[in-house]
């Protein structure tokens, strides 16, 4: 029974990682940059929920998604757009700078002490011997719906197909009449909205928020995105779920629990050694 519970917990944690990993992978696929400030958008989402919680949980969630989308767009316009075409290193350092900026602003606004953000007391579902929190079930269900929805959106909607086009060849896409700037903006908005939802599911599981909250899930999700093959949407999902399940099982065994992070990152190294493009990453042939 414990095995099943741990597996479900792992899947739901993995679902959250996958949601964040999608943000990394989409931005990488389309804008060809690593947005290291993405993890901190989770934290922004968490504090936004905290600010609006007094009205109503639903309002707070919607406000958090909208605010994070705007935040993502503003960050892209102010920090990244002027650097389009600059060396990847400059963009990377800028992203790290944005990450520190967001953390510092949050610390100034909310203080560094942890804040409890109790959105709702959901209780526990019991079927025979299995007792599992509703928060886990909701996270699982929502992440499944989001992932399927995002896949359909990218494959079949006009905007989604424009995103694929931009990720394959920016220049050619532009020549075909696609507004690349708009597509990049939409990508940031979707990624940030997913980060806001990730913060919601984190808070349902563990209701505490600190200014540095986003750092670790951000790194874990980035690892998940690379394991799955950065730039690949199904890859981010597989990587996220894999990482979540591994984390929960590692922590469930006292003897290896202290090495959980080491195990996760070792898996990243092994996968990159065997398959440098990640599990579902595409091989790109270099034309000479």
């Amino acid at each position, binding site marked *: 029974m414990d095995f099943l519970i741990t597996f479900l917990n792992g899947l739901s*944690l993995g679902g959250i990682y996958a949601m964040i990993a999608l943000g990394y992978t989409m931005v990488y696929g389309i804008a060809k940059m690593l947005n290291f400030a993405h993890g901190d958008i989770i934290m922004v989402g968490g504090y936004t929920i905290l600010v609006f919680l007094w009205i109503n949980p639903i309002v707070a969630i919607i406000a958090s998604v909208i605010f994070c989308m705007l935040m993502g767009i503003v960050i892209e316009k102010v920090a990244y757009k002027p650097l389009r075409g600059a060396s990847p290193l400059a963009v990377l350092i800028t992203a790290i700078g944005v990450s520190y900026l967001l953390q510092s602003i949050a610390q100034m606004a909310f203080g560094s002490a942890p804040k409890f953000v109790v959105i709702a007391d959901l209780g526990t579902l019991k079927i025979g011997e299995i007792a599992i929190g509703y928060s886990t079930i909701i996270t699982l269900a929502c992440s499944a719906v989001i992932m399927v929805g995002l896949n359909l959106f990218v494959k079949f909607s006009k905007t989604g197909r424009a995103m694929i086009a931009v990720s394959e060849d920016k220049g050619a896409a532009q020549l075909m009449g696609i507004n690349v700037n708009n597509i990049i903006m939409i990508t940031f908005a979707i990624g940030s909205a997913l980060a806001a939802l990730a913060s919601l599911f984190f808070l349902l599981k563990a209701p505490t928020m*600190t200014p540095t909250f986003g750092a670790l899930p951000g790194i874990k999700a980035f690892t998940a995105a690379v394991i799955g093959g950065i730039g690949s949407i199904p890859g981010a999902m597989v990587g996220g779920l894999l990482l979540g399940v591994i984390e929960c099982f590692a922590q469930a065994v006292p003897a290896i629990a*202290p090495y959980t992070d080491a195990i996760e990152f070792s898996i990243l190294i092994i996968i990159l050694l065997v398959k440098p493009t990640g599990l579902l990453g595409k091989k790109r042939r270099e034309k000479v």
Partner: protein
Amino acid sequence: MKLSTKILSLALALVMIVCAISLTSCNGEDHPAADNEKIKIGLTGPLTGGASIYGIAVKNAAQLAVDEINAAGGLDGIQFELVMYDDKHDATTVETLYAKLYEEGMQASLGTVTTKPGLEFKTFAKEDNVFFLTPSATGDAIPEFANGYQMCFADSNQGTAAAKFFNENYAGKKIGVFYKSDDEYSVGIYNNFKANLDKSFGDISATTASFTGEASTFDSQIQLLKDCEVVFMPIYYTPASQFMTQAMNVDNSIAIYYGCDGFDGIDAIEGFDINTVKQEVSYLSHFNSTATEGPAAEFIAKYNDKYDEEREPLNQFGAAAYDCVYAIYEAMKTAKANGKEIDANISADELCEILKEVFNSDSFTFRGITGKTEGNEKSTISWSADGTVQKEAIKYIVKEASN
């Protein structure tokens, strides 16, 4: 270039040259503190990042003590000055920060706020022979060298004390441990706890859960510990409160959460109502941050008067820092009474020898606000020759079990 800009840059260049000259002349002296007008007490601690609640409380409380001492006339007219830099709880920052403090004329120190940076700090302080009394770096190795002292209980003392308490009070119960495996503080206490625990508890390794980093979801750990009656948690209060909250959603037989001094402040987390936890929550500590009477309460009132209670909450780290400043001050007074010369530009090395002699002498006891206080009497605190503190611990029940 406009004329005004030219003049401005010329002026700035002049300022830089003057600064450079004055700096070199300063370095020419025997020791960096030669020009001090006040006795400089330096330290590092996390003022930003995840551990900043501890560093900020230390900074505020130490400043409060310095201000009080200065207002009362200082050390026969010599004023004190506190200099604290942000180490972000990151050991790699310490080398630069220590050098900066030393070059600016630090004469005595409060070391570091947390253990990891403290392990670096102590080696540099040893080289220059700088006296330090840390408020809260609990690592066993912190007072390893003769110039290092602690105001807090060392990890091994806390682990041993907790094991003793378990042996005496929880015999026959099924116990579990929840610790942070990448934290010196937590691992140190856990190892000593395990070593001193009675054999009758059996092998506790099967009910020992751990986490690393700023983990926030503890599903697996709760599954592992849900059948225990007493859970020992040698961790800080943030993850502890998360564990307790998340465990509410799982059927468990836990009756008591028992922590160490890192639990101090667990009942003051904004938005977290400790009374929603059904279990008894208690810990072994040297300071009660919710005291309503006695010297501790007096200090708490002074702190909250000066600082924003909500954004920069007081905790035992702060209380210990307050005691540290006063202990160094009292030791200087004692040394002066014994005929030692102390002035504002005494070198760190000389001051270290003087302070060591006082702290190591059997007759020196300091009356502080941490440790066990009786009524309005302050606690008695003294130090062993190895730099560890001698004072009585308090078992503090945050809340009784409820239904």
